[in-house]
């Protein structure tokens, strides 16, 4: 007997996501920009652009360049700062009734803690995602994401400072991502999400200049999907907390690969640029797949890889 609507709910600690399709930080703004195309309420959650204590101007242009089946970005974590975010951006999402996950970044363990503390008491925020991995900022970011001990310390600090579910977002620019994932789990993370962008570079052969002012940027999009699926599979086998799969998802089939590999949910990033309705397209495709395969619940699919 198959229900006409399969159960798509997934949990991160006590937080229930109505479905496993989320927007990846930095690719869906603050939920309002695309609201006329994608109703944030339909998504499992909206993960907003990375927020820091103070606003950041970001890197000089050029900041983006297309590469084969991917793109490099060196935005430099431009954001309006936590204060303005809470006052100017959050209200729309709160009133919309969407599940909101705030992506945070800092230059020090303390800064991460302060952000967590501030957000903890703000209504309308359902979880925090900690970006310890954004590769295109010279100071900050990187260091935490590539060192297990640093990752554990940031996690523990954020954990201590807020009661919200804590998701640690991992960097792929490491030899063994499972060691970082385990460190986050030890630190008290409720979930890990991966992958962030892979460090890359492109050169304009006419000017012989880097195509990004920052020289190095983060590679995202379909090009990185096989690397992301591999790391998600390795990580789900290494930790017992939920894993969110990210990397190159543009179609339902892409998302299903991550879920079958063991991801409890997926985030769509660059896919939103390729097709602003990608999240809805993926969500409906997952539902269709479950029906066709006579699965009552997404949990019959998650981690069902026959290897």
């Amino acid at each position, binding site marked *: 007997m198959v229900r006409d609507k399969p159960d798509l709910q997934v949990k991160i600690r006590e937080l229930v996501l109505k479905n496993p399709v989320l927007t990846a930080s*930095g*690719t*869906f*703004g603050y939920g309002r*920009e*695309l609201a*006329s*195309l994608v109703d944030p309420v339909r998504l499992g959650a909206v993960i907003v*652009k990375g927020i820091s204590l103070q606003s950041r*101007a*970001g*890197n*000089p*242009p*050029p*900041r*983006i*360049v*297309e590469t*084969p*089946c*991917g*793109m490099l*970005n060196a*935005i430099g974590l*431009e954001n309006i700062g936590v204060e303005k975010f809470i006052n100017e951006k959050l209200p729309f999402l709160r009133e919309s009734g969407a599940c909101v996950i705030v992506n945070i970044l800092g230059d020090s363990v303390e800064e991460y803690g302060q952000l967590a503390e501030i957000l903890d008491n703000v209504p309308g925020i359902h979880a925090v995602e900690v970006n310890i991995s954004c590769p295109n900022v010279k100071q900050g970011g990187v260091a935490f994401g590539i060192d297990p001990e640093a990752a554990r310390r940031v996690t523990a600090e954020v954990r201590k400072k807020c009661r919200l579910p804590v998701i640690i977002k991992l960097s792929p620019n490491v030899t063994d991502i499972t060691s970082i994932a385990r460190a986050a789990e030890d630190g008290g993370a409720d979930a890990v999400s991966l992958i962030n962008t892979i460090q890359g570079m492109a050169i304009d052969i006419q000017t012989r200049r880097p195509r990004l002012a920052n020289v190095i940027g983060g590679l995202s*999009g*379909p090009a990185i999907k096989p690397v992301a699926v591999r790391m998600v599979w390795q990580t789900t086998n290494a930790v017992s907390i939920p894993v969110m799969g990210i990397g190159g998802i*543009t179609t339902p089939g892409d998302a299903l690969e991550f879920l079958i590999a063991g991801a409890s949910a997926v985030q769509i990033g*660059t896919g*939103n*640029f*390729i*097709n*602003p*309705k990608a999240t809805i397209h993926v969500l409906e495709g997952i539902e269709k797949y479950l029906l066709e395969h006579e699965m009552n619940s997404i949990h019959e699919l998650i981690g069902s890889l026959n290897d």
Partner: protein
Amino acid sequence: MKQIDAEILEIEPAAKNIFRLTLKAPGIAEAAAPGQFVMIRPVSALDPLLPRPFSLHDWSGSQGTIIILFRVVGKSTRILAKSRHGQKLQVVGPLGKGFDITSAENVCLVGGGIGIAPLLGLAKQLLKTDTKREISVLLGGSSGAELAPLAEYFDIPGLAVVLATDDGTLGHHGVITDLMANHLARSSDWLVLACGPMPMLKAVSYLCRKNGWPCQVALETAMACGMGVCMGCAVKSAADSGNKGYLHVCKDGPVFWESDVAW
């Protein structure tokens, strides 16, 4: 803002290496304003990956059609040039902040190269809104072969069109800013609206400052989303513009007051 699979009604060569693309785009056409743009994705495959921004050259709300004028420079435009009547393209728009012509007295449109594209829709809008005002259209191009066919679009009563080419094969032999100087000198209350390559816009903005003409420029940058979410389309803002840091071409622009941009 709408996302549709727009059918190609017509695709025709307009000038050397430049094509004119007419799309059935209900919902977008009705909402279009001069200076706004659309994001177009010509393929379902993943290379090229990102949609590309194109200004609205012309449109008809009643017929629900939009027209794009594009130059072939790379992957997507090469594919677009090969596309055929009946095919469908992913189109998102209208996007961005267009030209502000609410308070305009006399207006001077300055276009260079493919930057001429958005000026047609703008000119038509200006003709609609106010009949008394003077409308000069200064168009520049590399050669007559490139410029002549584009200039023809502006062969409309009420528009005073002046041309310049780098090689002198049509109109004034030189850059468009030469013409601005003598042409606008006559009167002083001009609103200048410019679109074209960065060096031209820089020269135009410099000239306008010197003469105290208010000036708006339509800028181009690489774009990933076109909708204000990726922060990829940053341009440095003028220190004195209040906004320290960067402007975003896709949502603060593509049209800016010249004085807000760091040149």
